[in-house]
């Protein structure tokens, strides 16, 4: 296949950036999207140009590092798929593909397609955990957890923290990410003790990071590579309201 790529190039956070157009003449449909970028970079290096910087690591759709906005959609056209798992058979010979970084005030661009998502870590650091020191735990089977709760908690916990939700949301809201963690722990008995404190702190940090607010467009859920449901957002809203209104910490 022949593919034309329009890729966002930006030297660093201070540079204003621009699109560059590249032509690839031998793209196989068995390639992953990132393997196509490997080919592009190899070509650029041969031409003595600087290769495109992009985040990637596991290339099996679980580490959450890859992050490209492809033809106007986070992670490209396939549903439930990260950029690294997107394969070129999703495109046609002669296609032009526009590739941009995640765009959000809270995710500043570092270079080309790489952005800084450390805001997510800071949100996690204020409450995305159960306070249990190593060695304090009781026997794992001493707490019964209904299968349905465990399964729902797992579905929320499957979030890979890639930031596609923020990238997709017209408001750059991080509600899906935050609510996935809040939900996971709210659904499990282990999370009950710190339940209210957790949601208050995580939401406060989320707001402080400069994410927009949620307007329930559902775009995040539609583009989430792990299919995290916006039912989690409703749950977090409920948790948050409860934490503010009901007595107790």
């Amino acid at each position, binding site marked *: 296949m022949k593919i034309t790529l329009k890729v*966002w190039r930006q030297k660093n956070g201070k540079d204003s950036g621009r*699109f560059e157009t590249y032509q690839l003449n031998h793209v196989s449909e068995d390639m992953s999207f990132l393997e196509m970028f490997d080919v592009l970079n190899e070509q650029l290096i041969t031409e003595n140009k600087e290769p495109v910087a992009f985040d990637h690591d596991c290339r099996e759709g679980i580490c959450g590092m890859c992050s490209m*906005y492809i*033809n*106007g*959609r986070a992670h490209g*056209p396939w549903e439930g798929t990260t950029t690294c798992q997107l394969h070129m058979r999703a495109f046609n010979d002669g296609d032009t593909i*526009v590739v*941009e970084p995640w*765009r*959000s*005030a*809270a995710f500043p661009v570092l270079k080309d397609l790489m952005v800084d998502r450390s805001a997510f870590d800071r949100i996690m650091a204020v409450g995305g955990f159960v306070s249990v020191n190593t060695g304090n735990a009781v026997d794992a089977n001493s707490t019964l957890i209904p299968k349905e709760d465990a399964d729902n908690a797992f579905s929320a916990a499957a979030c890979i923290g890639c930031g596609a939700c923020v990238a*997709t949301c*017209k*408001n*750059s*809201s991080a509600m899906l990410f935050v609510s996935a963690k809040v939900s996971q722990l709210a659904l499990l008995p282990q999370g009950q003790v710190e339940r209210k404190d957790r949601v*208050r702190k995580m*939401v*406060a940090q*989320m*707001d402080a990071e*400069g*994410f*927009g*607010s*949620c*307007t*329930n*467009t*559902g*775009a995040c859920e*539609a*583009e989430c590579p792990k299919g995290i449901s*916006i*039912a989690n*957002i*409703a*749950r*977090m*809203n*409920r*948790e*948050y*309201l409860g*934490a*503010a*209104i009901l007595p107790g910490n």
Partner: protein
Amino acid sequence: MSKISQLFNSSIGQKVIMSLTGLFLCSFLVIHMIGNLQLFKGDSGMAFNTYAVFMTTNPLIKTTSYLLYASILYHAVKGLWLAARNRKARPVKYAMSQANANSHWTSRNMGVLGTMILVFIVVHMSDFWAEYKFGHIPYTKYTTNILTGELTSEAMPTDYVQSKKLEEYMVGTDTKVVIVKDLYKEVSEEFQNIGLVLLYLVAMFAVSFHLYHGFQSAFQSLGIAYDNYKGIIKAIGIWGFAILIPAGFAAMPLYFYFFKS
């Protein structure tokens, strides 16, 4: 910071107030709709005009109406403020965006739709509410024979005024007389203006699309969109608020334009 003030300052808290005011406005729409259906009664507007008096004099309704004005203002101002802030959360826009692939356009254009509705509300209020309250609307005298139900109406002289908004008395034992400001007439005259009719139609589309997303969204923001009754919330949102109510309101100008000219 207390938990409550933290709530109101948070993004979630602000959304909660948006949804509460929004749902309150939805409930008003239902009342307003039911009341206005009296325009179709075919009694030369007696019921409608009487209802208008009730709505502007009943202390409970009056109090509620101030709450309503405040809600409209808050919902509009805060909504626009939030929309502006949300835009700032993405300083550099995407060169290419395929938002239709992941969300309904109504959900992404609540600010625009809301602004259209706000403009409409201003026109609507100055046309009718302000006119009724501060302008000069002539009175009409309705005479009803209670035995036969026969109703006649006659316009009062333009310089006629009365101390009460509604004068009601019996003539003999079988004739009831009601003299009231004829808002109905004002309505039917206004809706002869094709421009205004079109404005109302456009506004009702805006209301429809705004509520198509807004009604369901409010429940999501309040965290009560549980799976079990997501379906019913959606049904009410679409059939009730995005279709029935705007259609009902839209029928009024059309009715006057086409059938009461």
